[in-house]
């Protein structure tokens, strides 16, 4: 059981990470959701993970699962749910503004990209000039 849960968590983390690295916000949100599930599964495994019920009218600790991780997982599910909904709202706003939900580069990135583009243009122009000079010689 525990091994299965460990593999499930690993799978969720792996696919979630892959989706996070995409540029569309919708995929990123799904990725975050998967990673959140992964961490919740991990939380559940810490309550001895044998599939026992958490609340039972018995005093023997081997009869029931530790309820605390389940409470923690519940809290984290609620919080992640709320934030994800807000992120969807932001994504919708972005779609309304730009008809796209691609996460744009930040200001710094665009600044650097523009400088590099300028430099590339200069270099290619210089190369063309050199080429022209060489052709003239020929």
């Amino acid at each position: 059981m525990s091994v299965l849960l460990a593999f499930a968590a690993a799978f969720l983390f792996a696919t979630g990470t892959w989706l996070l690295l995409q540029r569309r916000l919708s995929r990123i949100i799904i990725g975050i959701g998967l990673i959140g599930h992964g961490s919740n599964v991990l939380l559940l495994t810490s309550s001895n993970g044998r599939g026992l019920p958490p609340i039972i009218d018995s005093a023997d600790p081997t009869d029931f699962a530790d309820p605390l991780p389940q409470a923690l997982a519940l809290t984290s599910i609620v919080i992640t749910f709320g934030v994800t909904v807000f992120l969807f709202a932001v994504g919708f706003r972005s779609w309304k503004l730009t008809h796209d939900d691609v996460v744009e580069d930040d200001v710094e990135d665009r600044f650097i990209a523009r400088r590099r583009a300028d430099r590339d243009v200069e270099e290619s122009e210089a190369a063309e000039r050199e080429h022209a000079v060489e052709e003239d010689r020929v």
Partner: protein
Amino acid sequence: MTSALASVLGADFLTADVTAPSSGIFDALVPLPVLLPLLAASLSVIFARLRNVQRVLSIVALLGVVANNVVLLSRVDDATGDAAGGIVVSQAGGWVAPLGISLVVDRLSAIMLVVSSLMLLSVLIYAIGQDSEERRFAAFHPVYLVLAAGVSASFITGDLFNLFVAFEMMLVASYVLLTLGGRAGQVRSGMSYIVISLIASTLFITTLALFYSATGTVNMAELAERIPELSSGVRTGFSLILIAVFGIKAGIFPLFFWLPDSYPTAPNAVTAIFAGLLTKVGVYAIIRTQLLLFPADAQQGRLLLVVAGCTMVVGVLGALANDDLQRILSFHIISHIGYMIMGLGLFTLAGVAGAGFYVVHHIVVKTALFLVAGLVERKAGSDRLSRLGGMVRSAPMIAVLYALPALSIAGLPPFSGFVAKFALVGAAIEAEQWAIVAVALFVSLLTMYVMSRIWSSVFWGESEDGVVMARLAPGFTKVPMLMTAATVVVVGLSLALLVFAGPLYDLAERAATDLLNPQRYIDAVLASSTNVGVGG
């Protein structure tokens, strides 16, 4: 895997008395910095259409929090006649320590609470004076109060999972404040800010799962008792993962990249409170967890010093490369986070005390600088250095308000920045960490250059552009009295840090002594659990 319930109470837990012993009057003050703003926030939602009622509610709630925190600080620092000595504990719901959520105020928490509540109140008044986002959106007041509650909760919680909840409260509020208005720029930077914070939060939950699997508890005092029993590899891993989780929030190298992109797009007052408080909550969490939870061999002194050096250098270089006032100041936050991490990284009394003093100094001074940046933008209609100029004549008051905190943050004597940097560098020399001393002094020089660059291009010189802008938008050249007044108060507080530098440093030193002897914290929190069975 141990269950907290079973291990604490044994088999007969269903019949055991688990209520904490009745507590003193001061313990009741501990949850108030969280409860008051939350209560006011819910009332504020009811009065969504009546802006003036909302304003009064917010100001009254935050005034109450300030008063409460000052009482708490004086109580915690004056430990005479108290067995716990400098630590006030409140067990939420009356459950004994490892079962319920412990709320703990020690000297460091109390200092942070006082400073943060003062900043929250001043910035709120500034926002009301600014009369833009605050007036246009009914959501501003409730969300701002939730942010206040989240910040306070992060400082008083003694439970690692509750710290996660406090962070979320603060972060969700910050998402809303950052994207208030929904302009394209805000949506773009808001997206990356929310995604990054959300990843940090899921990483935090994962860490909590690992902690609970290994130790069977999320109570920080009990964790501190159990973590030394783990193998050294696991301890080091836990220590590193916590630095990463809080490092994203604090904006340390190499996890700072989201900060200078997202902060400047928020409304002015919001940026000021983000800059002053949010990163410092991350720094506080790093200081608290490193010193409380981990024994000396799992503390990452060398790593933290390297990270601190890189953070300082990268931040100040970013500040040098930018043209936009808000972005310069945002990069500059990162540089100064480095100084705080450096103090912690030394793991000496002088280092931690210096870091504590630096945090207080930086919260006040940085908030002041962002408020002044808001005034400049309001007055001149732009915050681009290349467009501004000559404000020393057109707005001498703003020039003075800028000069005082700028000189302080650059570390010129006799300002509080000098005292803070002097303490930190002194501690590093004492610990013979020469490399970090050199980096700190060099970055300090560059900081001076950044601040004088802002001064010479905003306040000196001529700028026809600025004059043109002012003529185009005549309504914007008049700065509301309330904005200036709030800025004057914050700048005045930064000067008060200079006047009271001596007592404040002594206080920081006492706080550091507490932090370096975590046993007293542990005893204070867990004291009530020994009474189980005896009856509380």
